[in-house]
């Protein structure tokens, strides 16, 4: 009941002309980013973040979060019409979405995908609304050892649940931590790892890393394939939408399963991309029409989209309550919170109620508005896709450059951006995961501080991480996650 009243209060905060205007702007911008290959939510939000420094934080987060919803919606348009996933989480949507478009059923595919995204997001938001305050209340009791163990669990989960080589996952993550260490040591105030240079005094800002890794790196990967777009017609009208909506209820099992997978992988830092693949895989295995998947089944569009959107939304739960983002885009939002002077974590629910509940209310409204805005503007986006990449690519690069520079007016950041771009390109092609690296850059300082404070408290005794039931079980779970690849490997060997 408490949560419900708070939510009403959130709507009160949200419903001002400027907040709604910025929300709409964010959605439109997000769709554009989401559906253009080469730019996405994470790096779009990173580029726009510096422009929000002068806004009230609530308005800023509403706009940036709206970009996130827009990007989640936008990814499927290019996936279905052009067979080009605008975002990594829409890769699974191309499997059945594009064949549908080829059969002239693009309108159905788009309606199904956008509507199921909406349902996934809606359920995840309801979970967020009622679960977040409980988690936050619980987390208020956390001290440094508990926080460190939660960070440990976050990072170990990447090892346990990643599809990539566990060694590559750890290498990428540790590189992120190393980047995060450069500059001023927050505890002693001394400098470290600056190698006597001036440009490294302030360290590597994670936004530069995000813009480079996801923006420039993505462009390099995209251009290598020599993209040329061959679009299918995007006929869509209210009749097609209505007809498709009537079909959707028969996929309720797929929808619920997709949402459950999404919420789970969003809260634990798996993120939208693995969620969409897992949901598609499960639907393929359990559906009556499973063998026909890949030839243009609506169910094959519904499954990944519900999961992706549910994961994207529920990724905000650990970010708001514990200060741990469940996805790279949530990591960028978390960075925004830090810049606006808010401390993400359980205290947010006590000290900044307007902010939290305004944001949660905006998720409900943003997704609803997003659904209708995107459904009615599909042809517009499809026509933008006809602008050749040779024009779009340099403009995206220029905008990435501007975003990097405006962050702290440091010319060196531009060079770092290109450096991160090259790292992003190599890592992407060699299957080093970028998400744990970005998370390590964002959370490096907080992880280190909680570790050092815990150590100082226990006078260097590592057993503090097993000192009570709570911290002990989280640490134990982390170890299971960390050694999960080894456990499964041994199990297979012994059989």
């Amino acid at each position, binding site marked *: 009941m408490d949560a419900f009243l708070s939510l009403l209060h959130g709507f009160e905060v949200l419903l001002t002309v400027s907040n709604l205007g910025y929300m709409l702007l964010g959605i439109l911008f997000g769709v554009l980013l989401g559906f253009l290959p080469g730019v996405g939510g994470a790096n779009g939000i990173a580029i726009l973040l510096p422009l929000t420094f002068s806004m009230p934080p609530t308005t800023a987060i509403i706009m940036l979060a709206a970009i996130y919803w827009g990007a989640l919606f936008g990814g499927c348009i290019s996936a279905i019409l052009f067979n080009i996933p605008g975002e990594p989480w829409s890769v699974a949507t191309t499997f059945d979405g594009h064949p549908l478009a080829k059969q002239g059923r693009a309108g159905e595919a788009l309606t199904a995908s956008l509507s199921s995204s909406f349902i996934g997001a809606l359920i995840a938001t309801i979970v967020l609304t009622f679960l977040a305050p409980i988690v936050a209340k619980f987390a208020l009791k956390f001290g440094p050892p508990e926080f460190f163990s939660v960070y440990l669990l976050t990072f170990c989960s990447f090892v346990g649940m990643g599809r990539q080589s566990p060694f590559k996952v*750890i*290498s990428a993550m540790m590189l992120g931590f190393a980047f995060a260490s450069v500059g001023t040591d927050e505890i002693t105030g001394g400098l470290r790892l600056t190698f006597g240079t001036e440009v490294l005094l302030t360290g590597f800002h994670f936004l530069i890393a995000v813009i480079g890794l996801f923006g420039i790196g993505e462009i*390099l990967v995209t251009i290598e394939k020599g993209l040329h777009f061959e679009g299918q017609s995007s006929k869509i009208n209210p009749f097609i939408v209505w007809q498709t909506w009537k079909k959707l209820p028969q996929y309720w099992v797929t929808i619920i399963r997709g949402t459950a997978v999404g919420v789970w992988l969003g809260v634990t830092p798996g993120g939208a991309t693995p969620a969409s693949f897992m949901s598609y895989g499960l639907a393929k295995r359990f559906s009556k029409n499973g063998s026909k998947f890949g030839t243009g089944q609506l169910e094959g569009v519904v499954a990944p989209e519900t999961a992706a959107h549910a994961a994207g939304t529920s990724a905000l739960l650990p970010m708001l309550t514990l200060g741990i983002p469940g996805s790279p885009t949530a990591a960028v939002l978390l960075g925004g919170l830090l810049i606006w002077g808010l401390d993400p974590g359980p205290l947010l629910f006590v000290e900044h109620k307007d902010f939290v509940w305004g944001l949660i209310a905006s998720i409900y409204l943003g997704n609803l508005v997003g659904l209708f805005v995107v459904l009615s503007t599909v042809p517009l986006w499809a026509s933008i896709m006809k602008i050749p990449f040779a024009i779009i690519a340099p403009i995206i690069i220029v905008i990435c450059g501007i975003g990097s520079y405006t962050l702290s007016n440091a010319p060196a950041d531009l060079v770092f951006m290109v450096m991160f771009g090259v790292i992003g390109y190599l890592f992407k092609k060699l299957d080093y995961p970028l998400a744990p690296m970005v998370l390590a850059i964002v959370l490096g300082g907080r992880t280190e501080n909680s570790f050092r404070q815990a150590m100082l408290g226990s006078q260097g005794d590592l057993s503090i991480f097993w000192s009570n039931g709570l911290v002990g079980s989280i640490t134990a779970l982390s170890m299971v996650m960390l050694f999960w690849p080894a456990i499964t490997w041994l199990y297979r060997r012994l059989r």
Partner: protein
Amino acid sequence: MAEGHDHESQGEHGKPVVSYRTMNIAVSVMLMIVAMIVMVASYRLGAGWAKDVGPDSGYFPFYVSLIMFVTSGVTLLQHLLMRHREGERVFLHYREMMMVLQVLVPTLIFVVLSIYIGIYISMALFIAFFMMWHGRYPWYKALPAAVAVPVVLFVLFEIWFLVPLPKGPFEAWLGY
């Protein structure tokens, strides 16, 4: 989009330049070198227990890079010992490499130029160059885009948002 091609036909991409195995080895060696540099720097800073501070400034980066050194070492060994056929998958063909360089090199030049002559002139040059070289557009099509984008962004950032971007002699001559 002059160079659209099917990803499956290998011949079109030109000669293979480098294999996944080689790139994996190169990247893991680079990560090990970075790890070593960070380890040495952190060790000098103090990677142990400091009085009243607890774990010293270098403690965390030292162990982080130690782990990175070990895991990258394992990746290196995995690819060194890899059976040949699997590892010789082509990482880059000649054509693909040229495409990537055609973006990367101009981007680097754009970035360095904007530090010296301002971002607006650099982006005009960059967009014109990119369209004419990569997209094979005639100059009379590239020019309007190359002028329009900086002008729009100038109005947006310098006048509307009042966010200063790097400027050079040309903007100074205009009075900014």
